[in-house]
């Protein structure tokens, strides 16, 4: 403990601190000063018969997990979050006990930088070869030549419009910034997405690695757009409501939005000429996993890429699987409705949505827009 403490003190005063080190230092100071040592040194013994998956409620519906328990005898416990950034913050502080994690391409770099991940030995995955070609080396999952994430669901974020109101086919992001639709535009609030959308609109080639001038240009466009925007949406339920009631005519949205077609709302997905954002949600192994739970997690990843899981999420919640094995079992209508027959064609205009190289700079732009 003293060694670590010395090192941290040294780091601290040499200006090379990470937040984790800072917390460690505080923790040591606190523990030493207040209690003279840890109260308890209990560490839960992770057994291979269960592990904890940090994910959101939809991916972990009980009916999606039941077949795995039945086949393998391994119980999947869950730690449910609303946004991956929450569980990353929790993992960073330690003791979270989450061994497997769902995170998106749009956030993976931040998670990797936070130092909470462990590489995955893909040779141990028997369904690795079932991935749709391209997903085995998609942007955001490989660092230092090692694979950290296994994509199991994917889609794009793009412009969606209500055809009945707009009255014509559109493929130009300009209408998101058009006075004609003042008060009937919705843009996303989370994950710097609006910043990236504005970059696409401006034709910036590196929307995730913008320099200062480009960020300034984006801020200007977004501030100019702000009076036209009805709402910066936070949850897809809000957006569904806005689009279904006709309150908003055109928005930047994501896939579950199309569910409202079931209720006779003529919303249409676009492949804008300026591009759209392709994402995947992947399973990541965390440093909380030990050898035993790692084996259980890998077995579960195989299940995610197997025949059953992908077909179930496609049918019940409208998510696209990355597994060719699952697609093979799905009926043709479902495959067509999810554009799973030719993913390449669907992704023609898309760029892989990765986390920005400089989150603080992106946040500063978004702050400026929100505070304007």
């Amino acid at each position: 403990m003293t060694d670590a403490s010395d090192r941290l003190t040294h780091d601290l005063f040499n200006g090379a601190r990470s937040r984790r080190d800072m917390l460690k230092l505080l923790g040591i100071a606190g523990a030493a000063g207040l209690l003279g040592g840890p109260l308890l040194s209990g560490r839960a013994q992770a057994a291979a018969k269960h592990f904890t998956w940090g994910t959101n409620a939809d991916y972990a519906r009980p009916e999606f997990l039941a077949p795995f328990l039945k086949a393998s005898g391994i119980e999947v416990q869950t730690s449910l979050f609303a946004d991956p950034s929450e569980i990353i913050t929790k993992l960073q502080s330690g003791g979270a006990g989450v061994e497997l994690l769902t995170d998106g391409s749009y956030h993976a770099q931040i998670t990797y930088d936070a130092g909470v991940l462990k590489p995955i030995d893909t040779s141990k995955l028997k369904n690795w070869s079932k991935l749709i070609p391209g997903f085995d080396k998609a942007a955001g999952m490989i660092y230092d030549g090692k694979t950290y994430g296994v994509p199991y669901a994917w889609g794009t974020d793009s412009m969606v419009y209500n055809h009945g109101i707009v009255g014509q086919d559109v493929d130009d992001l300009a209408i998101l910034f058009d006075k004609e639709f003042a008060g009937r535009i919705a843009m996303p609030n989370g994950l710097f997405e609006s910043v990236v959308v504005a970059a696409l609109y401006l034709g910036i080639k590196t929307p995730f690695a913008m320099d200062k001038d480009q960020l300034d240009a984006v801020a200007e466009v977004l501030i100019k757009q702000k009076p036209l925007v009805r709402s910066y949406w936070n949850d897809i339920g809000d957006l569904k409501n806005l689009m279904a009631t006709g309150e908003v005519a055109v928005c930047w949205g994501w896939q579950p939005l199309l569910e409202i077609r079931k209720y006779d709302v003529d919303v249409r997905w676009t492949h804008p000429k300026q591009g759209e954002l392709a994402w995947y949600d992947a399973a990541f192994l965390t440093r909380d996993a030990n050898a035993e739970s790692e084996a259980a997690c890998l077995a579960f990843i195989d299940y995610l890429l197997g025949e059953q899981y992908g077909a179930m999420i496609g049918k019940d919640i409208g998510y696209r699987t990355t597994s060719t094995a699952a697609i093979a079992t799905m009926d043709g209508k479902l495959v067509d409705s999810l554009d799973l027959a030719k993913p390449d064609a669907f992704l023609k205009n898309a760029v892989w949505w990765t986390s920005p190289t400089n989150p603080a700079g992106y946040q500063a732009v978004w702050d400026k827009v929100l505070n304007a």
Partner: protein
Amino acid sequence: MRFSRYPLITGGPWLLLLLTFFVLPIAGLLLLSLSPGNGSAAAFPTLDNYRGILDLASGRPQVLARTLGVALGVVLLATLIALPVAYYLAKGVRSTRLQALVLMLVTVTFLVGPLIRTVSWRGILGVKGLINTALTSSGLLDAPIMALLYGRPAVIAAMTYNSFPFMLFTLFLAMRTIDDRYLVAARDLGASANATFWRIVMPLAAPGLCVGAVLVFVPTLSTVLEPEMLGGTSGRLTTTEIRDQFFHALNWPLGSALTVLLIVAGGLAVGLLAALLALFARACGRVGLSLGSGGGR
């Protein structure tokens, strides 16, 4: 000596719990707020974060002022709603059954968690919400009022909704303990109903008002739900900024500095609120009422 005066027995357990578990996070917060933010080249103790957030050009001081203003506005609204009701229930209604019924109806709504309580306002204020549907279908309006939802009015309506019961309960309790004989005496001495209320009831209920104000102000200051769910493009408040800095930008030093600022501002506002209410109570008539942390009588 009676037990309730022993500081160790009364204050000991709570303060010990705080010293064990609460000092560490707070110390960490302070230290983090003094360390350089992401991408900064400064050395450890630095005021850069504070300089950054106090810079008027960043818009943050304005957001902080707005945050405090909204919270104070909510306190005012909650008081306006709760004051007549508490008075009526405590002194106007003889039936404890009715008192219990009204208070219980209000309490029960809290079992519906804050998320749903907040989201439900979309169904009321939206373009196809309750109000607009009623107004347009009855022919009173041709077009729905867009400004009801997604903006500060909706945020304030929901924040008040989520917090006014605290004011109601404390005021009711405070007024119920006022001895009816005071009111009788006031009337016998020829005081009007108004004078009785302002010169007897209000000063005696002042501790309740003060505590209620804090109970409303404090959670309102630290909530992110209402501005996120109902604020549209104008939902920015200091708490949502803090959340973004901690979770999205992963800039904990800046987030910590913002938090420290909010804590200081919130603490000052609570102190000011208590002082103002004490003044108010005195102005209402009775001198020497003890409020806040004063030592009893």
